[in-house]
C-alpha cells in the first residue's frame, strides 16, 4: 500500500501540488486524472522519488519514503517498476537486454536464468520473437509492452505508469490497459496510473483521483465518476459534445 499525506510541491515559488492526500491499495489500478498541467505527472514523479516534495509524507507500507536517504530509498526502488510515457527503453540495448537490465544489477542469476525470466516477461505481455530487436525497430504499442515487461522483470510490489496510452490508437490502448490490469490483479501489485484518457478511466479505474490545478478535488471509482457533482470533474469528463449528449441522456 502507498499512502500520501498532505503533499506539497512547488517549482520556482509556484505551487504545483497542494495538500494531496490519497491511498493506493494492492491489486487495484489507481488512476490519477486531470487536464494537462494539472500536476499529475509531478505527483507521480514525487511518488517514485524523482521530485522531492516541499512538505508532506509518502509511505510505502510502514516505511516513510520522504524521510529516507538516497541509499535507503534504493530498497524501495528495487520493488518499483515504471512504465514511462515515451517507454524510456534503453536505445543501446535490445529488447531482452532492456528487460535483463535490472536483473544484471540486483540479482546473481546466471545468463540462462535471466534469459528465461526475460522470455517469461515477454510472453506475459504477448510479445515473443522480438528479443533481439532494438527499441527503434518496434512500434509504439510494442515499445509499451516491452516497457511493461521490463517493469515487471523483478516482480515489483509497485507499478507506476505515466500516460501509458499516449500516442497509441484506441484498440492498442485498450490492449495495454487490460494488460496492466491483468498484471496488477495477477501479482497483487499496487498500480498507479497517470492518464487523461477517459477510455482508460472507464476500463480499468478501480480508484480514481482527480487533480485540478494541483489539488485533489475528487476521489472515487469508474462507476461513480459519471454521477459526480464536482463541476471541474464534469467539465473534464464531459469535455466533448458526444459526452455532453450522453450526459444529457443519462440525466433524462
Amino acid at each position: 500500500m502507498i499512502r500520501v499525506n498532505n503533499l506539497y510541491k512547488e517549482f520556482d515559488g509556484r505551487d504545483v501540488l497542494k495538500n494531496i492526500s490519497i491511498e493506493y491499495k494492492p491489486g487495484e489500478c489507481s488512476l490519477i486524472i486531470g487536464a494537462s498541467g494539472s500536476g499529475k505527472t509531478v505527483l507521480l514523479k514525487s511518488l517514485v522519488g524523482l521530485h522531492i516534495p516541499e512538505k508532506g509524507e509518502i509511505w510505502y507500507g510502514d516505511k516513510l519514503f520522504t524521510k529516507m536517504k538516497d541509499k535507503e530509498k534504493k530498497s524501495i526502488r528495487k520493488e518499483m517498476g515504471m512504465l514511462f510515457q515515451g517507454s524510456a527503453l534503453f536505445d543501446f540495448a535490445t529488447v531482452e537486454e532492456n528487460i535483463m537490465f535490472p536483473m544484471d544489477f540486483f540479482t546473481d542469476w546466471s545468463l540462462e536464468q535471466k534469459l528465461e525470466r526475460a522470455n517469461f516477461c515477454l510472453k506475459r505481455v504477448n510479445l515473443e520473437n522480438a528479443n533481439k530487436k532494438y527499441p527503434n525497430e518496434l512500434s509504439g504499442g510494442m515499445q509499451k509492452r516491452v516497457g511493461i515487461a521490463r517493469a515487471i522483470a523483478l516482480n515489483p510490489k509497485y507499478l507506476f505508469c505515466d500516460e501509458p496510452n499516449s500516442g497509441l490508437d484506441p484498440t492498442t490502448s485498450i490492449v495495454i490497459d487490460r494488460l496492466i490490469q491483468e498484471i496488477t490483479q495477477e501479482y497483487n501489485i499496487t498500480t498507479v496510473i497517470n492518464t487523461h484518457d477517459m477510455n482508460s478511466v472507464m476500463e480499468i479505474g478501480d480508484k480514481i483521483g482527480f487533480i485540478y490545478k494541483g489539488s485533489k478535488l475528487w476521489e472515487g471509482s469508474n462507476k461513480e465518476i459519471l454521477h459526480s457533482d464536482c463541476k471541474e470533474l464534469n467539465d473534464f469528463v464531459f469535455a466533448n459534445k458526444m459526452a455532453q449528449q450522453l450526459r444529457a441522456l443519462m440525466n433524462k
Partner: protein
Amino acid sequence: MGEYWLLMLKVFQKPEKWRVFFKQCAFEAQKLTLDSIPLISVISIFIGAVAVIQTVNNLDNPFIPKMYVGYMAREILVLEFCSTMVALILAGKIGSNIASEIGSMRITEQIDAMEIMGVNSANYLILPKITSSVILSPFVMLSSFAIGLLGGAAIVFATGAVTMAQYVEGLQFAFKIHYVYYSIAKMAVFTFIITSLASYFGYYAKGGSLGVGRSSTLSIVISSVLILVFDLALTKLLL
C-alpha cells in the same frame, strides 16, 4: 560548479556490480578511444609532415645542422601537439558524442528509468567513460607521437629535404623522457576534463533536442577553454 562536483561525487562511488562496470569500460574504451585512433592517426601524420616541412624552410642557415629538423619535429609533437592539439580534437569528437548521448537519455527519460530501478545512473553511465578514457590516454598520446614522427619520416623520404639519417639523428638528439611523461600527464588531465564535462552537460540537459544540441556545444566550448587553461598551468607546474 557545485552541481558539477555533486555529480562527480555521485559518479565516483563503488559500482553496483563490478562485472557490469568492466563490461561498460570495455565498451566505452572501444567507442570513445579506439574508434578515435584513425582520426588521430590521420591528423598526426599530416602534422608530423607539416612540422618537418616548416622546420626545413626555417632552417636554411648552413651553420645549423640539418638533424635539427628531426629534433624540432619531435619537440613540437611531444610538447604540444600530441597532448593539447589531440585533446582539442577529442573534445570535439568524443565530447559531443558523450554530451549528446547522455543528453538524449536524459530527455527521453532513460536516466529517470535507471534511477527508479535503483541504479546509480551517473555511476553506471559516466564512470566507465571517464575511467576507460583516462586509462587509455597515454596510449592515445604515444600513438599520436609515433604516427606523427612517421609522418615526418614520410615527408623526409618523399622530398629528400634532409637525409633519413639526419632526421633519425635529430629524433634521438637531446631526448628527454620527462617530456613524454609531461605529455602523458597533460593528456590524462585533458581527457578527464573532456569526459567529465561532456557527461555533466549531457546529464543536466533540458529542453528537448535543442537542449541536447546546446549541451553538446557547451561541452566542446568549455572543455576547449579549460584544456588551454590547464595546458598553461601544467606547463608552468611540470616543466
